[in-house]
């Protein structure tokens, strides 16, 4: 079952020009380019019946921001990885393919500053306070310092 499953994902990955690695049991990582992502995700749903999106993680990779879509079916977790440049953090939204992604994309937007084009709620804040200063870096980037965030948010409170 599991071997067939990996081969099925491998076929989809090859078609999308993506690299597949399976470092641990039942953990499959697929690196997909931004422009192939939507196609790959819809193929996963239609051809391999993987429709349950666990969550979307952001990652600070130095020059780039990594975005991981964690899908799950039966015993296997499929992590679809993609990157966007930190200088221009714009990614495509998959909300129309996987409607459950809407809040996860908002979370990555809040925490890493990535804008998902096509998400209707992306300009709204989900987790960060309304008083979050615009010039502060998004909080989960490695350059962001908790002490600085605390100081600036305190200032915003005092302003009110």
């Amino acid at each position, binding site marked *: 079952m599991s071997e067939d499953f990996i081969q099925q994902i491998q076929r989809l990955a090859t078609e999308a020009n993506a690299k597949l690695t399976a*470092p*641990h049991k*039942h*953990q499959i*990582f697929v690196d997909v380019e931004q422009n192939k992502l939507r196609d790959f995700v819809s193929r996963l749903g239609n051809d391999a019946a993987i*429709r*349950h*999106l*666990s*969550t979307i*993680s952001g*990652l*600070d990779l130095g020059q780039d921001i990594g975005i*991981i879509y*964690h899908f*799950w079916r*039966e*015993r296997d*977790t499929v*992590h679809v990885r993609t990157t966007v440049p930190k200088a221009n953090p714009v990614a495509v939204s998959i909300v129309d393919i*996987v*409607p*459950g*992604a*809407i*809040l*996860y994309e908002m*979370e990555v937007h*809040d*925490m890493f500053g990535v804008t998902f084009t096509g998400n*209707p*709620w992306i300009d*709204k*804040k*989900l*987790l*960060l*306070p309304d008083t979050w200063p615009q010039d502060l870096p998004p*909080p*989960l980037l*490695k350059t*962001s310092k*908790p002490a600085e965030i605390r100081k600036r948010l305190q200032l915003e409170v005092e302003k009110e």
Partner: protein
Amino acid sequence: MSSEPTEQKRRVETAGLIEYSAENLVPFGPIHPALKEPEYFKLILEGERIVEVIPRIGYVHRGLEKAAEARTWVQSMYMFERTCGICSFAHSLAFGQAVEGLTVYEVPRRARYIRLIIAEMERIHSHLLWVGLMGHWAGFETLFMWIWRDREVVLDLVEAICGNRIHKSMNTFVGVRRDMPENMEDRIVERMKFLADRARYYRSVIDTEETMLERTEGVAKLRPETVEKLSAVGPMIRCTGIQKDIRLNDPYAAYDEIPLDIITRKEGDVLSLLRLRLDEIVVSTNMITYAVKHLPDGPVRTKIPPVMPVGENSSHIEAPRGELFYYVKSTGGRTPDRVKARTPTLANLPTALEMLKGQTIADVPVVLTAIDPCFGCMDRMSFLETETNKQWTWSGEQLRQYGINYYFPERARK
């Protein structure tokens, strides 16, 4: 019937989906310090009916994912345990399993059984707490009092095994920190029988008591397509007839070694969630009884070095509320490079918004409680009626009373 000039109606910024004016907007939430998880909902109404809901969360965002980057692996485990005050063991278990996957060590069999026992006890106490809260919000205070009394039974057992009632600090990497105390078997079996009897009794109460049936039967019906589409988790997906449970589909701890019985229901309304969770309590008591009687001998932990190998891994478990997901990335240091946690409430939030559509204001407390959110902040709810330019604010208690009066006018308090 005066026709107000429409330009006077203040247009409110929308999600870009529909346009609505201020008279239809009910802000709902966000905070009450005594309660668990503040959330805020903008309810957009047409008369009494809700047509759209926009969520706003993050009022208690504590930045744990960021904090983990400055802590060692072991410190992170006990910090993540404090994410939740109800399913604390689930958090340390999911994080622990994700990190254990990076290493080459295997969890001892006895430790896997002990993990299962504590995880199931946690499910019992979480479900009991939730059924009690449902009683409270539906106006059935006696049920709340009785259930919370019975909940003490399972909390006492947890305390006897772990030393703590809530933050058990029982897990460690590749095992558990404490062995089961001696001579606990008979006591656990006896208490489990008591809890199963109580759960069956509450099940019969809910099936016959008019107060609960009136407030929950047929309310906020979910369809299987909706929950699949929105990636819902836990009881929310099982109440529509889909057999999806990580204990069954992707077994962890000792779930592949003991008889499993996954409860599903077909109806998808709030009542089916109540019945499903009470049945799950009975199933959990059976699992604990079986696990205690078949507890294998051997060590409960393996000592491992505090530095984790390079790599990335994820783990998910069936917490009381549904799938709890952790992703970890290690660069070989003493601290994690990245930890991502996703709690079941966030996964179920889009489904809750879907459930609220078409319901009345009176149903809001019951429907929002139905997803078993870490949530209860009903205070600070304000209403605005533009035609008469009347504005008023309701406390959580007033909202609860409104719901009860709406359904049972004869019981209205003078």
